[in-house]
């Protein structure tokens, strides 16, 4: 299978300080990919550069072998929630329907099929009973589910998710993981910015490790190693990996 996403010598800077330097990697189809790295490593910036919200300093990104603009409809992006205006008068259903706007274009209104798709997505995320609520009445986890539902109705082939698990409850996390795995099994590709190193091995097939530069990109089983982690996280990371090892030994009864 061809690579779905390709970065070639991508560099990104805010003002003058670089956040991403000379990234080159390629992601094959049908993978659940975790993007990890310390704070300020440029994880969110990578996603923003892919959807061309920030302009790269140099290098290029291609999605499905073409520039992003030509393949916009095949890509769904779920940003972090801080840009959202929670006071805006909008219901959950209206938010989810936004996912259909790229397909509808400027002049067509949402059809019954679009509404149906939105309701289905809400049902999949188990919040169909909240459809007519105002978005700010929901809990943080429920809000996150709404945004995932919006991405689902985009019917994309590549999903870019910026920290979907941050500040969500356990029930939401379980549902999201289930949805992500289902998407992967349908042959979709997901890039997920992720925080929690402990769950990387159980969640993802692939991992991109960043620290302004690319540390490594590849299958979790072969690249999620202590050596690479300490490259990405420095000494702090080393201690963390040691702790994980210790935890595993204790759990499996190897040490007392």
């Amino acid at each position, binding site marked *: 299978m061809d690579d779905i996403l390709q970065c070639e010598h991508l560099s990104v800077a805010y003002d003058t300080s670089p956040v991403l330097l000379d990234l080159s990697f390629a992601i094959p189809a049908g993978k659940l990919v975790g993007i990890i790295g310390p704070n300020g490593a440029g994880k969110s910036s990578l996603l923003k550069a892919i959807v061309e919200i920030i302009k790269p300093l140099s290098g290029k990104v291609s999605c499905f072998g073409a520039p992003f603009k030509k393949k916009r409809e095949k890509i769904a992006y779920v940003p972090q929630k801080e840009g959202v*205006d929670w006071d805006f008068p909008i219901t959950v259903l209206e938010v989810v329907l936004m996912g259909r706007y790229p397909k509808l274009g400027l002049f067509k209104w949402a059809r019954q099929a679009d509404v149906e798709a939105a309701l289905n997505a809400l049902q999949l995320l188990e919040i169909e009973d909240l459809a007519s609520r105002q978005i700010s009445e929901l809990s943080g986890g429920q809000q996150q589910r709404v945004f995932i539902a919006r991405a689902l109705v985009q019917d994309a082939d590549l999903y870019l998710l910026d920290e979907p698990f941050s500040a969500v409850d356990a029930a939401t996390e379980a549902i999201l993981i289930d949805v992500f795995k289902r998407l992967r099994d349908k042959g979709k590709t997901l890039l997920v910015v992720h925080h929690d190193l402990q769950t990387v091995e159980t969640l993802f097939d692939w991992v991109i490790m960043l620290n302004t530069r690319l540390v490594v990109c590849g299958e979790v089983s072969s690249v999620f190693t202590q050596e690479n982690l300490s490259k990405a996280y420095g000494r702090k990371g080393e201690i963390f990996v040691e702790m994980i090892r210790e935890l595993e030994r204790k759990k499996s009864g190897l040490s007392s």
Partner: protein
Amino acid sequence: MSDSFGFFTLFCDPVFRGPVIGSLLMSLATALVGAIAFLGRKSLIGEALSHATFPGVVVGVILAEVIFPEQEAIALLVMLFGAFATAFLGQLCIESILKIRQKADAALCYTLSSFLGVGVVFSSYLQQSHVAWYRKVQLFFYGQAATMTDLHIYMYAALSLGVCIAILLLYRSIQTSFFDPVFAESIGIRKKVVSSFVSALLCVAIVIGIRTVGVVLMTGMLIAPAVAARYVTSRFSMFLQLSAWIGMVSALLGNYLASEMIMKGSQLVYLPTGPATVIIASGIALLALLLSPSRGSLVKGVRRWRFRRSCLIDNLLKALWKHETVSLHQIYGWNIANKWFLHRTLATLQRGGWLQKTSKSIYGLTEDGRKRAAYMVRLHRLWELYLVQHLDHSLDHIHHSAEEMEHFITPTIENKLTKLLLDPTQDPHNQPIPKKELL
């Protein structure tokens, strides 16, 4: 309403037709654009821009009188264009001040006062040299619907239609970009582009509005319908529609109010249409603020008061439960509430069949009252037991929490507590917990 003057006269009578239909169209456009400006936090920009139109009006009037005398239609167009031009200049002025990193409020104040100042200087000059021109300018300052003609109807109909079409086309871009700008960018909706379109619409709406309500009161027409609508609904489509309706109803009522007074020829102060419309729109906003079912302050206040009263009733019942009979004097002694309130509550309880008077000023619970009170006591003691057994609270801290919680415990929670605590019979203070079966 007098015999010769009906509501529908407003739409047919050649004298009233112009002002009424003109201001209906005007308020439709301004309310819709105002609603969007309100959501985009551009209310104050609207205020600054409406004042910034004034020098444009003055220049427009002068140009029209000099170049196209006696040509009403072209003169009107020139005036409107002048107003639009300086509003646009005002917009540029605000933006360039913001670019050199000044504070937004400073930029708005500066633009508002400097543009208005220029306009007032020009118009004062006219006041001395060309009084007829000055009168025309003044129309735009405080607004005057009464002198609008069929020509205005056509002109405003065209402009309002344009604004409505623009909003329909931009509907989804505005919704997405205002609500979640980062996501909007990812699907190709540029925040900057949307914002510029909204600013342009704002200028057009203001130009449409100033003839009727005037430069000074313009923002009222923009924002008041949106404020009212926002209190009533949380759905974007409904919010826009409601704003438009509230704007139009205000215009209609404002015209009606103003014309009623003219028709009756009463000694009342002459009521200009623009301010009447703005006052009615603000009145509707105030009503919504007080009475909205979900967020109205009056409604919230009543709900709070009702809850407080039901807590007091619960407390009174519990206190009565501990005695066979009590005198009014004793009840006053418990200090549950003030005398007047207690008196009324006792009467309510009596009417409800919870309480009976055995003799003068001696009260006792009825059988039903006893059951209800015992249930409250049960909730209280269940909660105390729960705190001690499951949350490790010490005995001396639990009463206070239970006093509060007993008012919130629903039957479902009560069932859960009963199950969790294995249908207990004694509370932590070794007091009996009234049985459920008996109730």
